[in-house]
């Protein structure tokens, strides 16, 4: 009798533990929300990626459609090569535009995709040719100052 009670308590204990872990995974974590399982990867070349990091989201119309897989520096052409994993469910035309945006004023950076009009879709290993770099605040300010200075002359 005592042994059955003990077993029951241990069973309840383990069950509560499993429930909390499931609760953490489902309700707190992102296991359910963006499960990108099957992906195809494309590359994009940028002159400047700003603060983009691996695992940053890829968004199209604000919806997360993929993640940045890796970022390497190409020593031949001196620009950044960003490898992007896109969910297989979403197809994009070959002339899709890739921009690096910043979420909010101080937020993280992400890659925004804007679909073009090409009939063919991007496939595994393709390259997105039309890209726009991250906005670098210092460059922007110096451009502004130069234009102000030339105005005053």
């Amino acid at each position: 009798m005592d042994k059955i009670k003990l077993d029951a308590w241990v069973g309840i204990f383990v069950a509560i533990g499993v429930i909390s872990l499931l609760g953490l995974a489902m309700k707190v974590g992102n296991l359910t929300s963006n499960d990108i399982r099957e992906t195809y990867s494309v590359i994009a070349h940028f002159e400047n990626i700003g603060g983009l990091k691996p695992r940053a989201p890829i968004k199209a119309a604000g919806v997360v459609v993929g993640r940045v897989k890796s970022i390497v520096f190409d020593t031949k052409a001196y620009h950044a090569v960003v490898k992007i994993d896109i969910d297989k469910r979403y197809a994009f035309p070959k002339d899709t535009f890739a921009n690096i945006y910043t979420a909010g004023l101080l937020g993280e950076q992400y890659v925004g995709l804007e679909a073009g009009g090409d009939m063919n879709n991007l496939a595994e290993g393709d390259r997105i040719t039309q890209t726009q770099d991250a906005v670098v605040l210092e460059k922007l300010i110096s451009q502004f100052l130069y234009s102000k200075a030339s105005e005053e002359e």
Partner: protein
Amino acid sequence: MKILINFFEKVGYSITSRINRLGMATRLFFLIIISSGESFRRFHLTMKEIYFTGVMSLVIIIVSAFFVGMVLGLQGYYTLQKYGSSEAIGVLVALALVRELGPVVTALLFAGRAGTAITAEIGLMKATEQLSAMEMMAVNPVGRIIAPRFWAGVIAMPILASIFSMVGILGGYVVAVIVIGVDEGAFWSQMQANVDFRYDIVNGVIKSLVFGVACTIIALFEGFDAPPTAEGVSRATTRTVVTSSLVILGLDFILTSFMLGG
């Protein structure tokens, strides 16, 4: 000159004896691994220990988790409110609990609640020569007494840490959403957007597993190593709490730097 030599002797002795104890604890660890077959073959032995270390710790874990979560909710709200981003309170509470406070506070409470009990029990068993009696009867005391307690601690700790994190988040929810009135949808959705299953939750579970191993090994070794007197057992119990707490905090830093760096 004589005083100087005495001084160095003392320093040297304290270092070598510590290293000696570390080596003995490691040997005990391998001995447990080797002779732990029995604790799975006769699982009711381990089951009984899970009851004592896990189930009996539930009350203290749940109550303290709830209060820790509520305090996090309050403190976080008053700071985040200054920057106009009180909706991020869910992220703050969840990340703080899942990454750090869940595993660490659980392990500290576990060392105080279960670790001391293990040390005192084994120390007293040794003092009253129950372990020697077992050996006389050709029963391996490590397989029969030590290993089940070790595995019970290793199994119970991640479960307790998960419960701690979940209850803590519920405590934060109670304060932030029900008492203060932060928007409920923002609380959960921001949390889900920023807590990663692999990098936050699984890493927290790995941490608590490591703490479980460290805590129980320290408690078992201190009990096994205690001088067979009332004073010896009481000193060993104190040492269990001190050593476990320091090891938990040190290991936490090392594990975190590996996890964030990797």
